[in-house]
């Protein structure tokens, strides 16, 4: 067990180090993340300028801005750039073999690598995030009650895991199809529109609103933000949290199944 933990720790530190090695990349990427926010604020200011009563579907302009900022926090946890395509790429070029030989598990390795990347990211991004949130503090209605705050924090952790296992499952589909990029594009598209990344899901008319409510995607961006802004009624809060946990578990199990089936298929070919 100790030996195992040691392997994991090594992998983890290695990934952190690797991430830091490309520093130009890194600082650039982190700073850039805040740019779209600016256009969103301007766009919604222009939209609300045309509206006479200052609210739309229960959101004021300030609510919308706060919402976007919060989805950025959620996406800092749930987005997994390069994960699925990385796994699919490894499958395609045969690098995946090393997980057949070495005493280390593909998903475990990727999860640690991702945690390493994320932690480094938070380390650097914390400053800019804090600054932006401080500058934008007037857009926020204030801190939510403790229960909502707890749910918010928990939902962030879950959104990381959900995002990870969901994308890992997509990447592992690379065992079955040569070109995974289109599948990823589909995912990206749906994610962009139906995770709430682009707009609060309340804007959708029925029946879309209900349908999108059933998808797991909303937990990646919309849900944590909606919890913070108390847009989820108290009686539904923990029910939704449980649902989010269930989706996470589902994708965790799915990715494991896919990995084992994929390796069986892969070694069956003779590599």
């Amino acid at each position, binding site marked *: 067990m100790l030996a195992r933990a040691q392997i994991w720790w090594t992998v983890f530190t290695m990934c952190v180090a690797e991430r830091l090695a490309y520093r130009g990349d890194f600082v650039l990427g982190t700073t*850039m993340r805040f740019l779209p926010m600016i*256009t969103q604020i*301007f766009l919604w200011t*222009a939209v609300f300028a045309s509206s006479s009563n200052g609210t739309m579907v229960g959101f004021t302009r300030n609510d919308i801005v706060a919402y976007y900022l919060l989805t950025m926090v959620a996406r800092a946890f749930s987005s997994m750039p390069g994960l699925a395509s990385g796994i699919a790429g490894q499958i395609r070029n045969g690098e995946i073999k090393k997980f057949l030989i070495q005493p280390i598990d593909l998903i475990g390795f990727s999860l640690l690598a991702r945690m390493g990347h994320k932690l480094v990211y938070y380390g650097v991004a914390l400053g800019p995030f804090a600054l932006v949130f401080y500058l934008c503090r007037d857009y926020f209605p204030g801190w939510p009650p403790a229960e909502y705050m707890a749910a918010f924090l928990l939902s962030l952790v879950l959104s990381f895991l959900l995002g990870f296992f969901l994308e890992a499952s997509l990447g592992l589909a690379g065992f079955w199809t040569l*070109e995974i990029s289109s*599948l990823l*594009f589909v995912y990206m*598209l749906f994610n962009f529109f139906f995770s709430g990344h682009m707009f609060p899901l309340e804007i959708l*008319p029925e029946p879309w609103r209900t349908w999108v409510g059933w998808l797991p995607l909303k937990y990646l961006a919309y849900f944590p933000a909606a919890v913070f802004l108390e847009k989820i009624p108290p009686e539904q809060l923990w029910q939704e949290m449980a649902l989010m946990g269930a989706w996470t578990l589902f994708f965790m199990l799915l990715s494991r199944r896919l990995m084992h089936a994929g390796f069986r298929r892969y070694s069956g070919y003779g590599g």
Partner: protein
Amino acid sequence: MHRPNYLAVFWMFARNSLIRDMTFRTNYIIEVIFGVSWALMNLGFYTLIYRLMYADGDGHANIAGWSQYQFFVFIATTILVNSLVEGFFMANAEELSELTRTGGLDFALLKPIDTQFLLSLQRVNWSAVPKLILALALLAYSIPRIDGLTLSAIQFLLYPLYIVLGTLILYSVMIGLAATSIWLGRNQSLYDFWFYITNFSRYPMEIYEGTFGSPLRFVFTYMIPILVVINVPAATLAKPLSATNWPLAAFAVFATVASLAVSRWIFQRALMSYRSASS
């Protein structure tokens, strides 16, 4: 042997890319479908917003002076320019950092042909074509629905010209970014960076106003001229011609030439650094 005919070489790029796309037919079709649905969903989003604006009962809806169908022309222009950029340049810029990492760049440097030409155009992405058609269809749908707009022949002539200029500006930004990836060794976030920068161009420049908006508009119009890319052609077609627009229209021409020159310079510098830093 003699100098290569650049047009013939480009034709070969286009042809080979088509052969490649057709080998991965399913993939191509999926890419087309989702490229188009991406554009449609975007359109849907703005339709929703305009509907919400109408719903509040005061009977008018506009975003910074753009009525719904004017804004649709704006969106069509965005799709048009983006499909051109994606069709010709995007895949190549993405590949550039990959080439640097794998050393494939070495081969490009050996060829008796302009390296920037080779690296900018060797992949043509044919799946951008349907999006281009979609954009034209959206134009045809929206233009007649704009209240009180009569188009002159000049507008029809200027529009394609400014589309080309806009495409070239975006290309310059893109290849400039891609070239910096040679400097940085690897650049995963190139794609993000590109997205974030061009994100500013996807909205009418009039929304950038006020204490923060005005300087922003200034920077992205005159320093990194991406606000010119969509706004100038879209306004040419969606709004009546007006003498007040001419300075910006003239500037767009200058901006294109300047961007191309700067990006060329960055590209050459990046190659130089690759040549001296690599073993």
